[in-house]
């Protein structure tokens, strides 16, 4: 009986204690900041907890000042606590966060968030989003499934941590080789000019004492701004430079040239470029000369007005004119409106080619007209009066007097016109962007070499291959110019 009473007394005494134990909050997890820094904007915390079936998640709170209540802190993350059966462990770098449990990567839920095993007594996490160079105060709060804190949220004892890891920043591009090259070129040019001047002085060419100094800025400018970029471009054509790793390109020999010659559509685009350049130059010269002759007729009134009107296409920025033409040639554009049709002039390969050529001809005539008009005005009127008196027909005057006398102007401007047309980027790029397509991996129907090179360089990012194309364009133009000048000089000599 005494034993029973003693048992009852103990039980009665124990009941409130048991009840108190049932409601007793969990002890605060012990948080420590790891000595090692996991990386930029991260602080590593190690957490020791007492496994408790009531804990459904751990909330991590942080602030820039010490705090005792979550009201004065920000919620950093909420890490779920659950059974990890069937879950996979994460791997460093793959997911958003990196947590470890007992030294192993934490399991991940379906969304890739870290999950703590119910039985885990220690876990650690690299906390992201920390501001470097400042102390950060951190506390961990266990919460139940219904989101209630299992510790006193007004009596928190946060720990402080700090990250001083610096960010990984791309180093500025190494411009030293370019600057050294330019500096060396300039100094070498100066030395050369000094040498040439002294040589001239030794040979008694005293009239040209300052000539070398006067030409020095032009020579240096030409070398640094023209020759150096050309040489750099040629050098680039022998490397594997591309958009994905510019700056650490390697020498690949003639590989880029092989790629160019093996490109589908290479000969087609070269052929169309020649057609484009010849058609444009011929039309520019023909119509330019026609208009110049018309404007040069004696007795024509309103010459200035006509010249101004004809000059307008040249006076307006080229890209605006081209965009205006583009709009006018659309199915809903002005041209179709006038014709009462809805033809898509730029849809078919042939029609698009014809249209871009016509637009470029329209753009280029004023320059040729003004140049030839100036040359025509410089011709002697006496010569034509004499021919008139001798009864020479207008056609023969044009053929045997005007044309031969215009040759000194026409040859360089037509050469210039050819080179400009060959490298005329704006018209095609703004009208069609090289379209329509005619095959996979090929230049478009209206692409010329220069527009295709632009695509290769800046749309496909193949700088080395684009440089190889540019070298070929350069060589084509050098050869053409040499042949053209040689031919026209020969004609001049035999005349």
């Amino acid at each position: 009986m005494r034993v029973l009473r003693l048992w009852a007394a103990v039980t009665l005494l124990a009941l409130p204690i048991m009840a108190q134990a049932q409601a007793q909050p969990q002890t605060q997890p012990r948080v420590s900041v790891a000595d090692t820094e996991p990386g930029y904007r991260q602080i590593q915390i190690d957490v020791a907890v007492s496994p408790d079936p009531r804990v459904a998640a751990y909330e991590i709170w942080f602030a820039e000042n010490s705090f005792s209540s979550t009201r004065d802190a920000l919620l950093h993350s909420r890490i779920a606590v659950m059974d990890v059966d069937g879950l996979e462990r994460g791997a460093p770098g793959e997911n958003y966060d990196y947590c470890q449990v007992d030294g192993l990567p934490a399991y991940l839920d379906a969304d890739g968030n870290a999950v703590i095993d119910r039985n885990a007594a220690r876990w650690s996490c690299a906390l992201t989003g920390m501001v470097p160079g400042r102390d950060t105060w951190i506390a961990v709060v266990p919460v139940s499934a219904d989101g209630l804190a299992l510790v006193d949220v007004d009596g928190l004892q946060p720990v402080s941590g700090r990250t001083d890891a610096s960010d990984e920043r791309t180093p500025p591009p190494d411009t030293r080789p370019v600057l050294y090259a330019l500096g060396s070129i300039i100094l070498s040019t100066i030395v050369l000019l000094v040498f040439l001047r002294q040589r001239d002085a030794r040979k008694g060419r005293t009239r040209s004492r300052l000539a070398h100094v006067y030409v020095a800025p032009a020579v240096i400018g030409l070398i640094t701004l023209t020759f150096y970029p050309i040489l750099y471009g040629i050098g680039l054509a022998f490397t594997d430079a591309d958009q994905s790793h510019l700056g650490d390109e390697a020498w690949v020999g003639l590989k880029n040239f092989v790629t160019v010659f093996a490109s589908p559509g290479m000969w087609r685009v070269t052929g169309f470029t020649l057609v484009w350049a010849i058609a444009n130059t011929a039309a520019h010269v023909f119509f330019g000369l026609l208009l110049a002759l018309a404007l040069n007729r004696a007795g024509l009134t309103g010459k200035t007005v006509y010249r101004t009107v004809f000059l307008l296409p040249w006076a307006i920025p080229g890209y605006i004119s081209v965009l205006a033409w583009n709009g006018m040639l659309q199915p809903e554009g002005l041209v179709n409106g006038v014709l009462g049709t809805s033809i898509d002039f730029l849809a078919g390969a042939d029609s698009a080619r014809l249209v871009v050529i016509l637009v470029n001809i329209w753009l280029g005539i004023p320059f040729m007209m003004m140049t030839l008009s100036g040359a025509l005005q410089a011709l002697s009127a006496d010569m034509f009066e004499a021919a008139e008196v001798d009864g020479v027909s207008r056609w023969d005057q044009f053929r045997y007097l005007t044309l031969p006398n215009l040759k000194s102007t026409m040859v360089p401007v037509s050469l210039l016109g050819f080179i400009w047309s060959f490298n005329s980027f704006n018209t095609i790029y703004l009208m069609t962007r090289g379209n329509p397509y005619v095959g996979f991996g090929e230049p478009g129907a209206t692409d010329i070499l220069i527009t295709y090179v632009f695509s290769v360089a800046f749309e496909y990012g193949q700088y080395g291959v684009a440089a190889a194309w540019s070298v070929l364009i350069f060589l084509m133009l050098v050869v053409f110019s040499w042949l053209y000048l040689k031919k026209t000089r020969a004609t001049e000599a035999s005349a």
Partner: protein
Amino acid sequence: MINTFDRFRVLLAGPILLGSLLCHSAALAQSPSSRVDPIEVWYTFAVDSQEEAIFLRAVDAFEKAHPDIPVKPTRIPYLQNLSQFINSSQAGEAPDVIRLSDSELGRVGHISVEGLPLLEDLRVHLTPMQRSRFDARALAAMRYGNPLYAIPVSQGCLSLIYNRKLFDQAGVAYPRDDWTTEELLRAARSLTRGDILGMSVPLKWSYWFVPVLSAFGGAMFDPSGRPTLDSPGSSEAMDWYLDLERVHGVTVSSTSLEAMSTQFLLEKSAMVFDGAWNWNTYANQGLDIGQAVMPVMAETGQRLAPLASYFGWAVSKQSDAKVDSVRLALWLTSADVQKEFALSTYMLPTDRSLARDPEIAADPVLAGYIRQIQHTVQVPTVRGASMVYEQLDVALEMTYTGEMTAADALAAADVEMERVLDR
């Protein structure tokens, strides 16, 4: 009096000084320097969409809240946005913050300078709670591989927009969300009269082909990111798509992207598949327009699912103010800013708290696009994502001109994609 030799020396001094300075600059070029410049933000928005005004207001508010962080917003033309960023990054002159789409991230993701990517991995910059604010699909679209390269700010997709006046004039019932393509074509045929088209579809722009492709069960990529342009159903989809002109005559192949908007603006077409970004352009012209979810493909029973496009604010790897740049990016993607964007521009927010926002839900246009975005497909943010459209465009052209069958063109497009990716 200065003699000739002295003049020579004086004149020569200039170039010598220039040469020496260049060499000296070369030696100094690698020395570190400190920068106190404002945060430079490059942005590009659709014209007339009011996005720019709201963005600039958000920047002003940020500067007021953070007076020690000046911001310099710079508008970049849409088509040059990416290429300028790549070029400036390679020249060491990248802006701190830039707005990019998921397909642009796919193109930028594999590019590196000095072995480092062009963009900062934002995973370490955001706390999990900051990150959890965003829609999971939008967040995934901003990842290239493992890194998170941008904070998602908006999402959008194509949907069916129609002109009520033209429907009323033709006595045709307005489109409904449960429409099938048979009903769509029937309506389009009834609406095609004189110079008015039933539909304006830019037939040679593959972005508009994607909804049809998905309705036939085709896909541009498999889950691993490899191209699958010739997947089953693709050729049937392409034929159905081109038949809109070839067979049904309800649209014309000459319709470019600009022509589509122009035709609809001029009330020369009754329906377009267009994004919310153009809604204001149409509405501001006084058009009485309505919106419906894209129809269900009668042949397959699957709904036309357009591509979901995502935009986000990214931080350059070269930025020397990354913490402040991320702070700005978070500001620009905050729920308040996103809500203002959504209500004014109809671009859908990516902040999850706005999914049930009463004001957004009450807006008929936003509600319509929210319904549509439930029926979209997402392309993985991979390198090929930015290249696939060109190959599909070529395939459409080759099929349209009759030079290839749809199946052959798509197979060739797939081979070309593989070749480009392996290059």
